[in-house]
């Protein structure tokens, strides 16, 4: 997993609420057995017409946002299915950070497993960043994970909360499985105990 420490990039505004995982990556693209290559189909049904031509006013098709690395989104981003293809597609497109007032649980989790930083902020901060993002390529935003701070194009700063363990893993690009396997002894001890207490499992 790629580390996440500091990111400076263009933020794309997507004020729609309840952007679900079917919008992020429609299921026709779930039939892959790989993690890569999904970026071209990110937001596919909003981004292309039936003939595969780009829809001009979709935000990521506008010249200013084609290289966006951050999305500022409406409430409850990533609701719907558990498909990790959603963060894979975001990542493959180049999005490393999503900012919203709230995220769906599974999506939120999945982001961290893929080096994407989801940031939860109060409505007024999201509104402010949404305004900044509306200004397009002139509006470069910096996200500093170590300092837990977002700097807007005018130099205004917003701080955010994040779980310390998740922060640590993102900063260092750590793989969960390796970390957990270091605790094999605890897992085995638990299994022995459980086999006695609940042998039918």
């Amino acid at each position, binding site marked *: 997993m790629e580390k996440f420490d500091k990111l400076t990039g263009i933020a794309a505004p997507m004020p729609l609420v309840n952007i679900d995982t079917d919008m992020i990556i429609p299921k026709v693209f779930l039939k892959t057995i790989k993690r890569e290559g999904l970026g071209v189909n990110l937001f596919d049904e909003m981004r292309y017409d039936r003939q595969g031509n780009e829809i001009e006013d979709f935000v990521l098709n506008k010249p200013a946002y084609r290289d966006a690395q951050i999305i500022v989104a409406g409430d409850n981003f990533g609701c719907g299915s558990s*498909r990790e293809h959603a963060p894979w597609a975001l990542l493959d497109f180049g999005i490393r950070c999503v900012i919203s007032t709230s995220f769906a649980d*599974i999506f939120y989790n999945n982001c961290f497993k893929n080096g994407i930083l989801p940031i939860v902020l109060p409505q007024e901060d999201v509104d402010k960043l949404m305004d900044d993002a509306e200004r397009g390529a002139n509006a470069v935003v910096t996200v500093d994970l170590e300092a837990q701070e977002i700097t807007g194009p005018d130099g205004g700063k917003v701080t955010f909360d994040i779980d310390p363990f998740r922060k640590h893993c993102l900063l260092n690009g750590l793989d969960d499985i390796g970390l957990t396997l270091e*605790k094999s002894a605890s897992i085995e001890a638990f299994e022995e105990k459980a086999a006695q207490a609940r042998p039918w499992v």
Partner: protein
Amino acid sequence: MSPKTLYDKIWDAHLAHEAEDGTCLLYIDRHLVHEVTSPQAFEGLRMAGRKVHAPDKTIAVPDHNVPTTEGRDDPSQMTEDSRIQVAALDKNAKDFGVHYYPVSDVRQGIVHIVGPEQGWTLPGMTVVCGDSHTATHGAFGALAHGIGTSEVEHVLATQTLIQKKSKNMKVEITGKLAPGVTAKDITLAVIGKTGTAGGTGHVIEYCGEAIQSLSMEGRMTVCNMAIEGGARAGLIAPDETTFEYVKGRPHAPKGAQWEAAMDWWKTLYTDEGAHFDKVVTIRGEDIAPVVTWGTSPEDVLPITEVVPDPSSFTGGKVEAAKRSIEYMGLTPGQKLSDIAIDTVFIGSCTNGRIEDLRAAAAIVKGKKIKEGMRAMVVPGSGLVRAQAEEEGLADIFKDAGFEWRLAGCSMCLAMNPDQLSEGERCASTSNRNFEGRQGYKGRTHLVSPGMAAAAAITGKLTDVREMM
């Protein structure tokens, strides 16, 4: 000891490790696997030279992609990429030695229907699957939730999941349901009230007389859609109905082990005075048969209502409602019962069980579907299908003009050939009405099985109570 909720009890019984910062390793009793979200996880194991930690607790079944038409073993019925995914699951199940129900096995079906049916899902367990509707298994008083593919790999490799504890939420449905009102209406009504983010960060325990009176099938329908309410999982305390259902299932405990299990299962309830962070109460009598009008499961109203005016909402929902209504091709103020339907889909892990088929058949019996209507019944598993055939339900559907299909997810998410075309309008017993969910630009109205059956007969959204 301070009083605990059911969730607290199951959590505590599965805590394998707790780090100082509160990050926990939760031990997983059952890991269900399907073809769409697992290939990258197995590939990850291979690349790291890892094994499946507990293959005997891992159960795999292809369901999302598989065709549901006769002769589906013929590979030409599948697209190349679907074939590759199913073949990858075949191979992974074999290579890693996990339990497997291939398409040719009569026990194959939707993973969330197969698990309970085979007795893999038992009270007090932790159950995960790379699929958000894993919440279904909460009906047994099992802590069950969906996970992403990285977590699938994590569970395969370690049989644990890195977790932080969720908050406790109680949803109580008091009293009795009116005739024609089902578990599906309960679960939609709850989402209508709390919104799709109302349960975020919480595990919901459903309780109250109306919940206790439900069969296991109904309870699974309720818990299935906990995720649509944003919750991590839904739970219902196990009781005699649960034990009765579980007993004698192929993988349920037997003899002395059954007794030991029962001793523990009977302790699985929320203690008097336990703390809930959030409580929602709905009177069972107040729930009507509902339908969705928009493209979010929270866009739900009684069938007797009209399509709402977007300006009646607040905040970001105004835009979202406008977009939904346009997408759905509706007009504010239009009566929901005037909406004409092209297609009816009865199936999915929400409503693809035997009781659902019985409820639909009771409405259909002796009638014909509306001319020009496309209607299909897709049983949730091969065993549900066999039972429905034995009970004569299949003939009722076929005589009425329904297609009688083989088991799978089918038009619930339209990854197989069963899809809506652009603008096609469907009354569906599934769980998601998102844009494009059932096919590009397809329009979905979520309903109960009885309501779906009624729509198939009349050709429009219909109050099932008028046909009972």
